[in-house]
């Protein structure tokens, strides 16, 4: 079981990293989105591995089935031509900068985590829908309510900003 779990972890990590690279390097927006979807599915797998199936399914339901579809819609509404400004090849310098920016925190954090592993459970305990519900209506009631307001702000803000463009035409 240990080995299987590690294999699964490796698989999910591979999916996540491949997706991320694809999302960053893809020339066309839609392909980048496909990479992003790969990342989300990989993350859902990670949740499964942490014995949080509810969160994993929600990740798929919301991000893969909902959010990315909406992003798809947004891309379809724009002129997402693969030969825009961004498609010109990056200079060596900016690539190097990006690599350094990516590796520096990555290496620091992984060294920290590997050298000082935080206390953790030998085997993950199952986090079910009931536990989540108790948490959200118990100690985390305030954040739970705040999130809905933030969603409202995001939606109303998007409407407000988009409205302006409409009027300009």
């Amino acid at each position, binding site marked *: 079981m240990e080995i299987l779990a590690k294999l699964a972890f490796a698989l999910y990590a591979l999916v996540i990293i491949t997706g991320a690279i694809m999302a960053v390097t893809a020339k066309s927006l839609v392909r980048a989105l496909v990479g992003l979807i790969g990342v989300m599915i990989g993350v859902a797998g990670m949740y499964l591995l942490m014995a949080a199936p509810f969160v994993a399914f929600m990740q798929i339901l919301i991000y893969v089935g909902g959010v990315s579809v909406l992003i798809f819609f947004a891309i379809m509404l724009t002129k997402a031509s693969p030969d825009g400004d961004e498609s010109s090849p990056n200079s060596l310098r900016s690539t190097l900068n990006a690599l350094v920016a990516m590796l520096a925190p990555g290496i620091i*954090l992984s060294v920290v*985590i590997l*050298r000082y592993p935080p206390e953790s459970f030998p085997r993950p305990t199952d986090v079910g829908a009931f536990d989540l519900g108790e948490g959200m209506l118990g*100690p*985390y009631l305030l*954040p739970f309510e705040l999130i809905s307001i933030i969603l409202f702000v995001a939606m109303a*803000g998007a409407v407000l*900003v988009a409205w302006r463009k409409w009027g300009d035409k």
Partner: protein
Amino acid sequence: MEFRPDLIIPELYQLLLIGALFIQGIADRPWMPRVGKWLSWCAGVGILISAGSLDLNGLIFVGSYRVDTLSQFFKFAVSFGFAVAVLNATRQPTLEKEKHCEYFMFMALSAWGLMILSSCVELISIYLALELASFSLFPLVPLRSGEKGAAEAAVKYVFFGAAATAIGLFGFSLILASQHTTYLIDFMQKPWAWSEAPMAVAGLTLFLCGMLFKLALFPFHFWAPDVYEGASNETVAYISTMPKLGAVVVLIRLSMLLKPGLEITTILALLAAVSITYGNLAALIQTDVKRLLGYSTIAHAGYVMVGLTAGTTEGVAAAAFYSFIYVIMNFACFWVICRIATDGRNLKLDDLNGLYKRAPGLALVLAVGAMALVGLPPTAGFMGKLFLLTAAWNHSYNWLVVIAAANIAISIYYYLNLVRHAYTKEAPESTPTAVPYPFFSLLWGGLLAALLILFGILPGLVFKALPPSL
């Protein structure tokens, strides 16, 4: 623990305003009350309400929401700032008429987020309240008609904001992984030194990165001047002052953990020093007034940090005092800028030339505001800086205090440059002789300036509201 709605009256009142704005925003009746008018009065009532609830005390929402003197003081500061910002923005020339409701609704939401933020003692709530406060500002920036830069500023703001959010959340996950709690009160028992809990320290650092973005402290400041230049004057008046209050209150809450000598505290002190120096030096060469104030904001964020790194009650009280004063003095300066820029354009320093002739009252307000920002007596800015530096001396990093003091000298140049342009330079012939402004705008601006001098002479008025037990 039962829920006590009487503890959150200021928040409920603000929510009521938001609801009213929302309803008016979606209504399509031919007749509507003018938003600017009724909201100014209602926001004024809000100040009174939060002043009346200064003494409340309690813990609600399962221990994640603490109502105490600190939170009530900041709620008071927020509702004060909100009222001034509303008053300031009522006659905004670059805002389309049909968007007034929404504009003020988002501003109110942001202020509401800050109010909640000042009471949160649980990390996720803090994070979300901060997001609420900053998300609500994103749609305000592009609402400047006839300005291409506004869209650019909005895009920059949103992207950097999103990146900062992501970094903060990642840090949050590390904290949760190593400390297994999100309640600040439980954090007290946990170690926060690098040698004992490196992962938590790394996480807290990242979390603070997200926070400092809102504060526009040094390495996270780069968005600020561009955004300030693109957004309308009235919006900037809000953005450049109010979110600072939120960030300061969070840092005060976290300062229970940040004892001097800890690695994070050292990093913060370093950042504060660089921030002050960088902000001041960059402000020296600006010709755009808003950019100048943008850079000065970065420096001021650094000053507040000086008090917080002290880790003492006096330091925290000084920081709270200073951020409240900062709200007043920044609004005083922006008040003048917004009145002079009658068509909503970006002001250059030369546009201030000869202001003492064209609008003597406004010139005086500007002079008081600038002197307060420098920290000259008898203004409140002087008292604020004095408290900060004395509180930090011998309790914190003395080198930091020295740097801060040296920077005050630098900042004299560019702040008084504002005054110099207003008083000693003559306006070119082409400019209109007088700035048309109504009597009330002078009255309110004068009130702000008067407050600055009043608190400069009697800082105890504010300190009385501040908790002794901080």
